[in-house]
Every structure is written in structure tokens, then in C-alpha cells.
């Protein structure tokens, strides 16, 4: 069945099952492999993408649910909040093994877009569904704080490299 997807601003038509998880379509059909498969059960947050700006677990979201909506993956994250988060991630050397990090960044960018000055408690609740087996949580929290400060000061630069 033909499914129309808008991912990172590009419209694509795929001949796939409408019940296919969005993550499969993104990785296997669109070859955007920055989004990771972690648990397949929305338990870990590694597969987080944005649907109309909302952080969403792509592993449990059928592609049919994204019809007519904007999907953004880590490859296309270019909002001011997204850029500030990526710059802060680079500055703070946040990733360790890196597997969970695209999901972490997507959740963090959505948080800052909705709440530009989050408290530590706001960060904890917004990031509660993103698990990092390397336990980089302290660096994640501090990078989000720095990104919020940079956004407020208007000094965030696009991530280098």
C-alpha cells in the first residue's frame, strides 16, 4: 500500500504496510540510520523522532499515524532549540558510546522548544523516558542547561562537524 511520508521536509511515497513501525520506514526504506532501534517497546527512548514537533517513539508508532504530519529525525533537526542542543552536546562531550544520544537530543530539543527555561525537575520529567546505559545523565542535564542559557543569550551557533 502506498504511504506518503514527510520526513525532514521531504515528501516521499513508499509502498509499505500502513502498520509498519515508523522506525522501520525511516531506517530501512529512507536509509536515515541516525535514529536507533533500542528496545522496540517504547521503553528506552533511543528511537525518538519529532512528529509535528512532539517527541515520539517511532518504534511503536505506525507509519499510518504520520500521514499529513511533519516527521523530523536527528538528521533534519535544525530548529533554534535543536541547534543549541547539538552545540551544547558537542561542547560538553556528552555522548559516551552514543547509541541513545540521537533520542536524547530529540527529547531535549523538544523540551527547550516547549519550555525555554526548564528547571532541573522539568528536565528530569521530560527526559524520564530516555535511558542511557552509560549513565551520561549528569552531562545531559548540564548540556540542556547550557543550551537554554545560549538560546536565551542568542549565542547558539550551529553544531560544528
Amino acid at each position: 500500500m502506498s504511504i506518503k511520508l514527510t520526513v525532514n521536509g521531504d515528501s516521499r511515497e513508499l509502498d509499505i504496510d500502513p502498520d509498519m513501525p515508523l522506525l522501520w520506514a525511516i531506517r530501512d526504506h529512507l536509509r536515515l540510520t541516525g535514529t536507533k532501534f533500542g528496545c522496540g517497546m517504547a521503553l528506552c527512548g533511543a528511537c525518538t523522532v519529532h512528529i509535528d514537533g512532539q517527541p515520539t517513539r517511532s518504534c511503536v508508532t505506525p507509519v499510518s499515524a504520520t500521514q499529513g504530519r511533519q516527521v523530523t529525525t536527528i538528521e533534519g533537526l535544525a530548529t533554534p532549540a535543536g541547534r543549541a542542543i547539538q552545540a551544547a552536546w558537542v561542547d560538553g562531550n556528552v555522548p559516551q558510546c552514543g547509541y541513545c544520544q540521537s533520542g536524547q537530543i530529540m527529547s531535549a530539543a523538544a523540551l527547550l522548544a516547549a519550555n525555554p527555561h526548564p528547571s532541573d525537575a522539568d528536565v528530569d520529567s521530560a527526559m524520564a523516558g530516555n535511558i542511557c546505559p552509560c549513565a551520561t545523565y549528569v552531562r545531559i542535564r548540564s548540556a540542556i542547561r547550557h543550551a537554554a542559557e545560549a538560546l536565551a543569550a542568542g549565542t547558539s551557533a550551529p553544531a560544528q562537524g
Partner: protein
Amino acid sequence: MTASRWLFAIALAGLVVVAAAIWYFMGPGPLTFAGTETVRLADYQGPNPSGVPSELSQSDPVTRGRYLTHAADCQACHTLEGGLPFAGGRAFKTQFGTLYSSNITPDRETGIGAWSAGDFLRAVHKGVRPDGTHLYPAFPYAAYTYLTDDDVQAIWAYLGSIPAVKNPIPANDLAFPFNQRWLMGIWSGLFNPDRRFAPNVRRTPEWNRGAYLAEGLAHCGDCHTPRNLLQALDNRRKFGGALTAGWRAYNITGHPMTGVGGWSEEDLAQYLATGHATNHGTASGPMGEAVDISLSKLTPSDIRALVAYVRSIPPIAASDFPAVRTEVADATPWSGADVTADSLGKQVFAGACAGCHGWTGTSPVMDRATLIGSRALNDPTAVNVVQMVLSGSPAGMPAFGAAYSDAEIAAVANYVTARFGAKASAVTARKVAHLRTTT
């Protein structure tokens, strides 16, 4: 009819109305259900149901007072969130306006440091301050009135031993006529028995200790018993469940389906002592607080006494409550009759909840996060689900009130009650907005 017959008929109708009002408002007392074979405490042959448990009976008054202060849960109401214990100032939003709890530290200006022991006894038993003005019955003196003078004096000794905190309390903000304190004198005359606990000779010593703990100290009924129009406890529906401070206090009668009649004694004891029992959920909100500050500090013998007492409460069916569901939900996000694939509630659950609570409702992480069997999930109003999502739980759940909109929180509440409970709730965003203002 002649004029005199008319007068007679009107007088009769008036009498009927007055009798009905008396019947409605002046219901049974909290211990009426147990029978009338009571004796004065001094005449009771069994072990003393008042005071501290035997382990502590030889200790000094301050230690005994600390135990009794914990058992009476003074701290929960007399402490502001994040504030110093007993320094007061916590706001209670009622339908009549906002009340603030008083500072009960020994500070002479803003606390009760200038009171005498007699002043304290009168306030606790009769709801009257040293200057003769009446306290509002948000202070549960109609329960504390059952305490012995010795126990009140031990609490006084303990409160005198804690550090004085200078913390002026804001004036109550109540609408007329509720801002008229003298009216509380009438309330007190009607509804405060002003009697000490009288043991029941037909019941076991353990039951009597449990009754003293539950009715005098722990004042369970203040949350769990519904109130009549004059805000007095309606003991015809004793422990039948009520909405208090924006949270639902559940039915804790012996009803097997909608009360706690189906719980084992071990489960009840574990829940009271730790705030959690396997397959019965985890205490949050005011009950979580009561466990943290009060019930978890009780000795095992007192917990057993409370269980014995709660077990004796006549069952009342909560008609708006289905029986609690015990089977787990489907193991995957794609299966289960309750699931609509692209619902907002499912999206929120996947992002924020599934990691700890699991798709089956049995937590892969910790027993305390298991949803199956929790009464909050089986409450078709989902009031406590919404409150827990908004404000989190001391058991380890973060607060999501700032992270999600009213519509998202309503959607996730309806999703989880459908997936894990007996009956789906129909919470609206407006209801969530209202619940945000109640605590």
C-alpha cells in the same frame, strides 16, 4: 379545615422537617457500629489501649510524645512543602476558601510557645484557642478529643522539645459566613463529642488499640469518610471513601469488591507500613504522605492493631466503582482491544510512562511502579491518576505537570485506565485544569 387544624398540620410538618434534619445531620458516631458495651478507660480490665506500645512504655515523655505525634500525623498538615517541620503555613483549599495551618513550634510570637499545657489540652480536645476563639474543624479535634490527657500532654512535651521556628502564618481567606469563627462554636457543639476513648468490652484488646489509633490519633475518617452538608463525618457511610483535597480517599470498609475486604491481612499491614503491597498499587498523594510521616513510624504491633480494626468496619459498596481488575494488559504496544494506534494518550504513555510501568502494567523495573491492581487505575474518575501525573509520587515518579498540557494529561489518564483498569475514564482537559488548582 378549621384554622386550628391548619396550625396543627403546619406544626406537624415543621416537626417532621426538624426530625429529618436531626436524623440527617446527627448521625452515628465513629464507633457506634461496634456496639454500646463500652466502659470508661479507667474501668477497663484489658491492656491499656492508649499511650505508646509496650516497647516504649518506659521511655521519657519526649520520646513517647514523638511516637504519638507521628501517630497523630500532626506534621503532614502543619508543614509547608519544603518547609520546616511543624512550622505551619500549608494552604488548604476548600470550597469555602483557603485555610492555613498554624505554626505549632515553640516560637512565642508565631507558634504556640506562649501557650500553657492546659491551653494545648483544651485546643486538642475542644478546638478552642487560649483566647477563646474557635479553631476550624480542618484541625481534626473531633477525632483528637478521644485521646487521653496523658497522651496529649506527651505530644505537648514533644512539641516543646523541637526547635522554635519564627514563621508568621497568613490570615485565612474564607468567604462570608465561613470567616465567622464563632460559628465554629456551634459546629463544635453539634459534632465534637468531647469525650475520651471508651474501650469496648466485647472486642479484643488488639481491636481496642486499633480503634484508639484509627479514631483518636490517625483520624482515618477525616479523609476516608464522606461528609454531610455541614462538613461533619457521615458515619452511616463510615470509611466508604470520599474526595479530600483534590484526591480520592478510597473505600476502606470490608467490602470485598470495592473496599479492602479482598486484601489479605499481610497486604493491608504491608501497605500501611510501607505504602505498597504487591498487586494493590502504591500510596501517593495524601496517603503517601500519611505513610511516610506517620504510619511507617508505627511499631508492627500497632500496624496489626490498625489492620484488626479496619477489618471490623461494616462493608459498604461503592456503587460507582467496578471491581478491581487483576489481569495484566497485553505485552506489546500493538495489541490489546483498548488500543487505538495513533491516540495522543498512547503517544504520551510511550514517551513518558512505558519505560517504568511497562506495556503489561507490571513494571519491569520495580514492584512499586506496577499499575495492575492499583485502585487509582480502576477508579473511573481517574482523579488520583491525574494528580499523580501532575505532581509525581515520593515513591520515585517524577512530576509531569509542567512537561505536558492538560489535553495530554487527560489523554494519558484515559489511556491508562482503559489499558490497565476495569473501565476507561473520560477525563477532559478542563478537568485536569481544575485538578491543577486543588492541591
